[in-house]
């Protein structure tokens, strides 16, 4: 499954790159991109673990930039 989430207050491009690297290292993630330009997070992960992966990704983001929020729909 592939899903895109909007990010709010993603302020620094280097942080976006760090988030991307961290999320890509998560178990179950096939491919993740954090775009500073479009302020979007795209996660491609195994269907059965998707929610779990998203939760872990949100944690990764909070660790790199605590002000940045993921809009979960």
């Amino acid at each position, binding site marked *: 499954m592939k899903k895109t989430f909007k990010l709010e207050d993603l302020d*620094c491009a280097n942080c976006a*790159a760090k988030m991307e690297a961290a999320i890509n290292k998560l178990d179950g993630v096939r491919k993740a*991109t954090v*775009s500073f330009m*479009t302020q979007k997070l*795209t996660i491609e992960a195994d269907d059965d673990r998707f929610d779990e992966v998203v939760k872990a990704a949100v944690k990764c983001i909070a*660790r*790199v930039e*605590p*002000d940045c929020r993921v809009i979960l729909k």
Partner: protein
Amino acid sequence: MTTKQKRTLGRIAAAALLCLAAALLPARGVWRPLLFAAAYLTVGYDVLYSAARNILHGQVFDEKFLMSVATLGALALREYPEAAAVMLFYQIGEWFQGIAVGRSRRSIAALMDIAPETAVVLREGRELEVSPDEVEVGEILVVRPGERIALDGVVLEGSSSVDTAALTGESLPADKAEGDRVVSGTINLTGLLKIRAESVYEDSTVARILELVENSQQKKAKVESFITRFARWYTPCVVGGALLLALIPPLLFSQSWSVWIERALIFLVVSCPCALVVSVPLSFFGGIGGASREGILIKGANDLEALAGVDTVVFDKTGTLTRGSFAVDAVHPGRIGAEELLDIAAAAESGSRHPVAESIVAAHGGDIDRSRVGEVTELAGMGLRAVVDGQLFYVGNAALMRKVGADYHDCHLPGTIIHISREAEYLGHIVVNDQLKPDAAQAVAALKALGVKRTVMLSGDMPRVAEAAAAQLGIDEVHAGLLPAQKVERVEEMLKSGAKLAFVGDGINDAPVLTRADVGIAMGAMGSDAAIESADVVLMDDKPSRLPLALRLARRTMRIVRENIAFALGVKAVILLLGALGVANMWFAVFGDVGVLILAVLNAMRCLRKIS
């Protein structure tokens, strides 16, 4: 500006005033440091706070942390103005970056402002305004002049001209009448149109374009991945260098601690690779956004990078360089006048829907009195047998002439030859050709002027026809008489010999070649899903002259990217060197961080500009 940005701006102004006061007022004793410290805290408290918090999260090489160490170090060395200034400029840089990125994001969004907000549908005889994604296939849309067409469809009623500029970059409106296809995102200009929706919004042209540009950010160019990798190493290395600089000279060579710590702090200030990490993706985003305004959709930064490096352009002939519609090139009569010959042929062909027949009728121009035409029989694979004005004529190819025993001769001109005989008496022939697009020759010349080394034409047509077209266009190489699979083989051969190859096709039956080439470019893709799927670059209209423009846009973007990389790395390297030698001070370092960032972002914004 967001509220957060406004607040930051306020703090920057307050801190700047405090710094000014500290510098100008005759403050003595503890007052001067206190004023600077106040400025420092006003502008930097959040940086210090997040630095502390990030340390707890294990983010050591965080730029906020490094800035905090650098400025606190400066305070410890009693360099109050420097500490306050570094923090102040750092915040100005961050603020500016936010504004610049926000603005370019918005201007790209404005380019992409082609999405229809609402659609008016006819339901049970009444007009209803709904969101485009609520419209179902087959429903009737009512589009008034000035409104955007919400969904792809076919005109049922009315005629109008339609502005396609937002999608194709073509400023001349297109005339649309009953039975014509119209595309979502274009604007109805003059008359009321009733349109039957042919797709749901999600599958409409406009939705696909928007998705494509948004997703282009996910396909990263090689240079982008390089920058990300580089950034991961750069900061730790510079910080390591700072540590060595602070420790080794004082410990081993008993130099002064404060001098070398100050030099180390300079390292920390320039340790953020932000200028690169921001400006490179921003350039690609701008380049792709700017191209989309010209009706050139580039699917990813990697495709833009590949396009910029192309040295061989391979064209499909029919539908790409030619219109795919026939016209009469020459009339060569034997025994009778040219007009008479054309008149007979046109009368005989007047009932046919074949493109060649239509071109002959179109060349005749005048009214054809259908009562002159008697019985017409189609002879499969050869032509027609037709009674015109009571006489029997044969109109068709050489095989037909042989069959009826007419003494025909071939033509010296390339093209499709239509022979005409009265019974077995040869009357002459008409030469019909697929017409070259008016801007095709100019496009080939422009590509050569841009330094494209090799232009190649692939065609399924007869060699003579293809060679003539290539000669007229100035194309270097022709491979004709090819089946679709052989086109793939030819392209693979060229790729093997090291060509950086772009293939340009109409996307209808050349999907395998499009995917095989380094850059697959589909042309005239408005409304053609298959082309959008398989190509890397999609030209919305079918003009070959968009091609050199696409190449120039791609190259400009790459040039700007390279400029930024060279500039940012160069300045940082110089400052690191001068800092280590004690020539550069804190002020240099602030420029190396913030100044470089601002200049790189401004340079990246040039990618958005139009090419004249």
